[in-house]
């Protein structure tokens, strides 16, 4: 039985993202950040976006392009310490920022991907980060309820894909990508290499294709921003 070819054009894939969309973006620092999809999103230009990403990249990179274009109204993230622009916009009230502990952010995304409503955890109890959260008693102790974090779109970066949309990531570029691919209503993946079905060992697929909707091939020569950052 053949499987669907999900390859598509960059502009067509990103063109379906409208104003007010909630968008998850993979990556932890540079590795795994889908810079090409983000650049096209800037070109396309929807406004009032909610961006869910581990970090805000660094100035002049990735999420910073969206911030600079005034497209972001809300950022849900674990930290923005490497991007002074994000800190400045947050302090100036130009964007609203929700900080979530990194592993809780990952787990809230995964929870949405798993079709669950939330999870119960003791992380942050006794600290500021527990304030305002719903509580529940289990086995005589108090825990926090962390709600699933859903999105309209996930933009992810893969090292390798097959045409059906099976994805494999390289090294620490995996990070939030597989979780976000599961969590969004529509997952758009960019891949450095796209092979035919059968070109990826089924035991070595990191994101199974049913989680992926659209697949965009990257040019052989990647944008410079994907490279090693020299500080």
């Amino acid at each position, binding site marked *: 039985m053949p499987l669907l070819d999900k390859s598509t054009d960059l502009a067509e894939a990103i063109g379906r993202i409208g104003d007010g969309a909630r968008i998850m973006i993979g990556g932890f620092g540079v590795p795994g950040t889908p810079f090409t999809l983000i650049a096209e999103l800037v070109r396309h230009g929807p406004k009032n976006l909610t961006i869910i990403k581990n970090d805000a990249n660094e100035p002049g990179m990735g999420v910073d392009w969206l911030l600079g274009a005034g497209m972001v109204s809300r950022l849900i993230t674990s930290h923005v310490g490497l991007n002074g622009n994000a800190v400045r916009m947050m302090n100036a009230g130009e964007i609203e920022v929700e900080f979530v502990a990194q592993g809780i952010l990952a787990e809230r995304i995964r929870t949405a991907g798993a079709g669950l409503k939330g999870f119960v955890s003791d992380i942050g109890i006794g600290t500021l980060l527990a304030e305002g959260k719903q509580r529940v008693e289990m086995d005589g102790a108090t825990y926090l309820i962390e709600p699933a974090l859903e999105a309209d779109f996930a933009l992810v970066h893969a090292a390798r894909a097959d045409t*059906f949309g099976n994805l494999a990531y390289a090294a620490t570029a995996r990070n939030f990508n597989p979780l976000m691919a599961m969590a969004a209503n529509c997952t758009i993946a960019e891949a450095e290499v796209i092979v035919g079905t059968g070109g990826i060992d089924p035991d070595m697929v990191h994101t199974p294709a049913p989680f992926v909707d659209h697949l965009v091939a990257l040019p052989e020569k990647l944008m410079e921003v994907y490279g090693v950052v020299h500080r």
Partner: protein
Amino acid sequence: MSSTAKQRMLARAARDITPGMTVNLGIGLPTQVMAHVGADCPVCLHSENGIAGVGGLAAPGHEDRNLIDAGGGYITCAPGGSFFDSAVSFALVRGGRLDLTLLGAFEVAANGDLANWIIPGKSAAGVGGAIELAQKARRVGVLTSHTDKHGNPKILERCTLPLTAVGCVNRIYTDMAVCDVQPDGLHLVELAEGVTLAEVRAATGAPLIVPAGPIPTF
């Protein structure tokens, strides 16, 4: 159910499996639907023990000891298939990535309730993955003989057995008819060739809403 009626039912259900779908077929009758899907139709077959992209049944003598479906049958993996753990497998189901599941039934009700896992008083061997398939697939079809072996209706106004899931069923395929669950009740959509409306009404334990014009056959 005659062999002809059964094949007709399987073929009819197969026509609702459309290109690009990810589909899970329950053990028994539903599994047999696959043979009726066109060989060139791009469909991703999921089995909840951890595969998307089932190729088909393994040829005798060519079974892989590590490659079964949830019913324990030896299968193959299609090019483009993938393996994953049981948590990811059910994430796919609950997370809305399963377009369609076809399931068997003890009873199915006009309100979409499904009972297919336990008959109190007889042994209960566990629910397996049926609850999540029934409750969370984007579309749920039931494949069943229209009546049980005693001739009693399996389609009822309300289920009498403990439910697998509430209001989950969209469409029912039987040897006599295709029916859709709608907010206003159970709609007769198609009649099996050679079966009359009166026969279906007599064999159904719930009122049927019938189309105004001629009823299509399958």
